[in-house]
């Protein structure tokens, strides 16, 4: 057999899972990803749109950073997205696929709006804010509780259930908006005359409260999941319900409690959006953030600090894309491609952080 001299065909690439990777390597991979993204994008920009890539990148950057106002708006939009991500974290950590954030936010927003419409100007402002807050927490919690209870009690599929609850919420909001708008074509801002229930301006921005709340919650949720007994229970239930039962954890109770928290925080987001950002309600109040936040929560592996980074990246890209479309009169599909490619490369780099690729050795002669 010593004579057998044949060229061995080896697979060209083999994918091998990495065991662990140093922080430096992670950073290098990510930086390389961003550079590659910028190069690939530059080719797209140059050959498809005929623009100067560097100018386009500058404009993209300006989408968030050219003025302090734009930066604050980016922060405001980040706050909504991040808040929902934070709200989803405990549910997802429990492996409860709550895809109903959109609906939970809407219900919170609707409750807030209802309080503004029916009690605005009739009760003192402080009381009004409290009522708005409580109503939104309750409405969001209810929208989380219902699928949680069904799951705990009847083992219903929570993904479908929460998804369907979104549509129910959208219809309820559409119905209320239709009632409130009366003969007008649209609802417009609520309490436009009295401004009752609008958040006070802090440093010139009504949404400053939103930023403060989200900042506090980033830390609070991190601590809740990492250090609290509840957080521990959530982790155990998420890993294995059998283990949880073995440990004496009341699985149903944890599921319901966590969904109430998740829903209530979504409701809180609705409150902040209506009071601090929109001062009105529509079926678009959550604006798809309820779904985008799923990506945020997942990518960050439920770490709220990573969530903040990822939310920022998403907001930066969307603002950049919008600015490119506006500045160059580009169709926004083109600018979305530019932003999307960057996102693609950055997400793609996760693969290289988790896996190693073995290149084919130069085809070898054996003995």
């Amino acid at each position: 057999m010593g004579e057998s001299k044949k060229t061995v065909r080896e697979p060209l690439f083999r994918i091998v899972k990495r065991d662990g990777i140093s922080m430096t390597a992670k950073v290098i991979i990510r930086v390389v990803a961003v550079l590659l993204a910028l190069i690939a994008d530059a080719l797209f920009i140059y050959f498809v749109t005929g623009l100067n890539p560097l100018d386009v990148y500058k404009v993209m950057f300006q989408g968030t950073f050219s003025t302090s106002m734009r930066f604050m708006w980016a922060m405001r939009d980040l706050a909504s997205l991040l808040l929902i991500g934070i709200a989803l974290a405990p549910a997802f950590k429990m492996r409860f696929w709550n895809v109903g954030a959109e609906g939970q936010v809407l219900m919170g927003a609707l409750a807030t709006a209802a309080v503004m419409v029916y009690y605005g100007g009739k009760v003192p402002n402080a009381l009004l804010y409290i009522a708005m807050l409580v109503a939104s927490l309750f409405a969001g919690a209810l929208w989380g509780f219902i699928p949680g209870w069904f799951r705990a009690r009847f083992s219903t599929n929570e993904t479908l259930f929460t998804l369907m609850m979104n549509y129910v919420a959208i219809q309820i909001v559409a119905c209320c908006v239709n009632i409130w708008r009366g003969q007008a074509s649209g609802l417009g801002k609520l309490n436009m005359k009295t401004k009752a229930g609008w958040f006070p301006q802090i440093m010139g921005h009504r949404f400053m409260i939103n930023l403060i709340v989200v900042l506090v919650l980033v830390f609070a949720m991190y601590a809740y999941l990492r250090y609290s007994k509840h957080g521990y229970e959530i982790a155990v239930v998420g890993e294995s319900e059998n283990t949880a039962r073995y440990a004496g954890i009341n699985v149903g109770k944890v599921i319901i409690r966590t969904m109430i928290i998740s829903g209530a925080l979504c409701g809180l987001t609705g409150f902040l959006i209506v009071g601090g950002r929109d001062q009105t309600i529509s079926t678009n109040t959550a604006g798809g953030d309820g779904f985008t936040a799923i990506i945020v929560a997942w990518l960050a592996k439920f770490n709220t600090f990573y969530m903040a980074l990822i939310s920022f990246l998403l907001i930066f890209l969307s603002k950049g894309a919008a600015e490119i479309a506006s500045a160059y009169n580009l169709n926004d599909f083109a600018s979305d491609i530019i932003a999307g490619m960057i996102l693609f490369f950055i997400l793609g780099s996760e693969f290289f952080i988790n896996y190693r690729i073995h290149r084919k050795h130069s085809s070898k002669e054996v003995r």
Partner: protein
Amino acid sequence: MKKLIALMLAAVLCMVACVAMAAELKVGVILVGDETEGYTLAHMNGIKAAAQSLGMADNQIVWKYKVPEDQTCYDAALDLVGQGCNVIVSNSYGHQTYMVEAASEYEDVTFVAMTGDFAAISGLSNFKNAFTKIYEARYVSGVVAGMKLAELLSSGELSAEKQPNSFDADGNVKIGYVGAFNYAEVVSGYTAFFLGVRSIVPNVTMEVMYTNSWFDIDKEAATAEALIAKGCVIIGQHADSTGAPAATQKLLDAGNICYSIGYNIDMLPTAPTAALTSPTNEWSVFYTELFSAAMNGEEMPADWAKGFDADAVAITTLGPSCAEGTAEKVAEVEAAIRDGSLKIFDTATFTVGGETVTSAPCDLSFMDYSTMTAIYEGETVEAIVDGAFQESTFRSAPYFALRIDGIVEDAQ
């Protein structure tokens, strides 16, 4: 001599200032859609035409596309202010509450909420509304439809024997209308259209069906088909897609007797034999006035509304299916509208509940219906003056909301 020099200097300075001002004009445009959507495209074309005729440079206009009617609009407005725009225009009705908020914060910038309805009562001098008298063009398009109807009836092509469901119990010919929403804007439009038809063929009845959307090609097509199935011979529309004309063409080809009056754009490419004409806005007329006023430092009125008098409205090319003599009739009617001898909403031409209308009080307040309070108090005006309903005179946005006899609104 000194005086002369001073005078010349002043003149030069003035010229420099004027040129500087022209150069200084920067327009921000907030659009609800983009070029793929007919309504927005019409505005874009109007703005571009105005800019061209005034010799403005490309970088004097900053565009914001696909801005929804929410806080995004306010952001866009402030962002445009930040970019140095001194005139900011939004093209959708729902933008106005956000525009007015921005207007209250930036008094040196002129904000124009197209199709809006409370500029005059907002108390802000830098907040404007504008609308064309599109109902005039709708009336004329009704005349075109009426001519066709008359031809069909007199030639015997359309008769109770051939298409029995096209006639109601009283022998009136049925026509249909695809409306977007039941707002005054639409009511005003279809009433004008109906009166236009009836000015030619007295015994008509019209059914209006709503799609509850400004742009929904499938729904508009389905609505047109439903109306034709009920026997409607003419399909008018106040919705932005080509759905209705396309559906009408399809059914015409299938042997039905049905014709279409479009909106905004020439529908002949979509419906070569079914389309008769479309009423359309000439937005460039307004934008030219707006931009040149800004350049010259002149003040625009809080409400701007013009029609045939300024060629701000028109009808598109008459289709090959139009009846003989239509062009002449159209010219005659347009002239009558221009010289004021024809009033569209002449109370002698319609009744409400069988009665001639003698009084139509209109509350111009901008209401918050959720709390039933007025956001901006406006006075209640008497719209019937000199035997006609005075549309678009007390404010630019339409307020004709009477439901006249002969038109049936489909229950929603």
